[in-house]
């Protein structure tokens, strides 16, 4: 290993996170190189300084308070069947974008599935597998991860922030899923390959800026679905229809600009 190679691996080396062979190669170099040895020594000293920082214990009252809250929660537990009941989450709604790819099962309306996914993901501690606010990074992640070309719209001008993405399942298909939020309100957008039975989209037809959409409401969430190219798109959120339609229109425009799926 050269000095440059050691320097490039300095942090994982000092952290003991290098593979065994690389650690051995770095060791061999550092032993014979005063400059690198000094670099490593300094880095280790810095790490020690950080690890040795004094730690503060939690106040005893906090311990009592937390244990009490947990026990109280346990007593109420039997009645709680939905995260929707949790006050901290009650105000939340979600924006998720997903693309699914495999056999279509028109057994029940797609929106049911999307709304269920929306609810299920929103209650995960990490609804997004990839946490990112950068549409380009998310699109690249889908490309590398699953060979998917996913249009990741930028809704930030409307105050809707990208939170992240995940590979999801919808109608037993692999789906790309994007999570957005407006304030504390989450929004889900799903994109799936065109089903043979497009009529299964269901809902009420609605026209917005010259395009046809379908809106629906399930379990208190609004949905907007539409067909574009060879894919189905669906938005799920507690945001109002107007906002959803605007997001749908933006996504459609964005997709028209990029290559079709």
């Amino acid at each position, binding site marked *: 290993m050269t000095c440059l190679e050691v320097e490039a691996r300095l942090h994982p080396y000092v*952290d003991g996170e290098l593979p065994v062979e690389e650690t051995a190669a770095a060791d061999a170099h550092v032993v014979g190189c005063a400059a690198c040895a000094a670099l490593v020594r300094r880095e280790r000293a810095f790490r020690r300084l950080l690890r040795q920082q004094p*730690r503060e214990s939690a106040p005893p009252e906090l311990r009592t308070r*937390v244990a009490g809250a947990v026990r109280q929660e*346990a007593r109420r537990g039997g009645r709680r069947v939905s*995260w929707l009941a949790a006050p901290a989450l009650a105000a939340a709604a979600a924006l998720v974008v997903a693309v699914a790819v495999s056999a279509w099962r028109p057994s029940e309306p797609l929106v049911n599935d999307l709304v269920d996914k929306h609810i299920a993901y929103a209650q995960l*501690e990490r609804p997004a597998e990839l946490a990112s606010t950068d549409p380009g990074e998310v699109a690249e992640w889908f490309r590398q991860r699953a060979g998917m070309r996913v249009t990741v719209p930028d809704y930030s001008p409307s105050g809707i922030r990208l939170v992240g993405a995940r590979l999801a399942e919808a109608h037993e298909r692999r789906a790309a899923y994007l999570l957005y939020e407006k304030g504390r309100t989450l929004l889900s957008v799903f994109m799936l390959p065109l089903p043979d039975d497009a009529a299964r989209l269901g809902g009420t037809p609605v026209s917005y800026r010259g395009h046809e959409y379908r809106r629906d409401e399930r379990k208190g969430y609004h949905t907007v679905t539409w067909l574009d190219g060879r894919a189905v798109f669906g938005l799920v959120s507690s945001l109002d229809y107007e906002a959803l339609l605007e997001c749908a229109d933006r996504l459609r425009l964005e997709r028209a600009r990029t290559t079709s799926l």
Partner: protein
Amino acid sequence: MIGGQPLFRWTAAGRDPREFEQVALVHLDALYQTALRLTRSRAEAEDVVQETFLRAFRAFDRFNPGTNCRAWLYTILRNVFLNRRRQEGREVLDPQGMALAEAAESATACSFTGDNPEEEFFQSVLHGDVDRALKAIPLVYREAVILADLEGLSYKEVAEVLGCPIGTVMSRLARGRQQLRRALSGFAREHGYLRKTE
């Protein structure tokens, strides 16, 4: 029940408070310490910790007993913390923040031109300096440094908590440590330990 269907399998049976106390609540000190470093206020740290444990308890039946409970709790803590920040309209992890961080970094670099960035100033670091320095660096780097260096999580665990690839953890750590070190050498200079390059 919503729409006649049970949405989730949250049952009282899966949520035994005694098991939770043994597995999760034992990490109270670590969680509080981290919350303190993230929030910088005891009152806020306490609220964040309490909310974290409540959410962890509600989700406890989904915790995989074979995995690191402390790392799992940090993940929840971080979400609770970030949600609160968002609600307050304060600093969150966004590209703008990253850009600002980079700008701040180059600005710092300029202000120290002429100094040896690798000065051995660690002996002069006073009590509280590290926490002060942590406060001075952007949240994206601060959280990586706190988890890896102060809490001793592995890269993989940090990646899980932050929800990002290990490569990203490595670059954030490298940059975070660099910024932290600059901030600390600034304090050392303030204390009069570092006058000029030795």
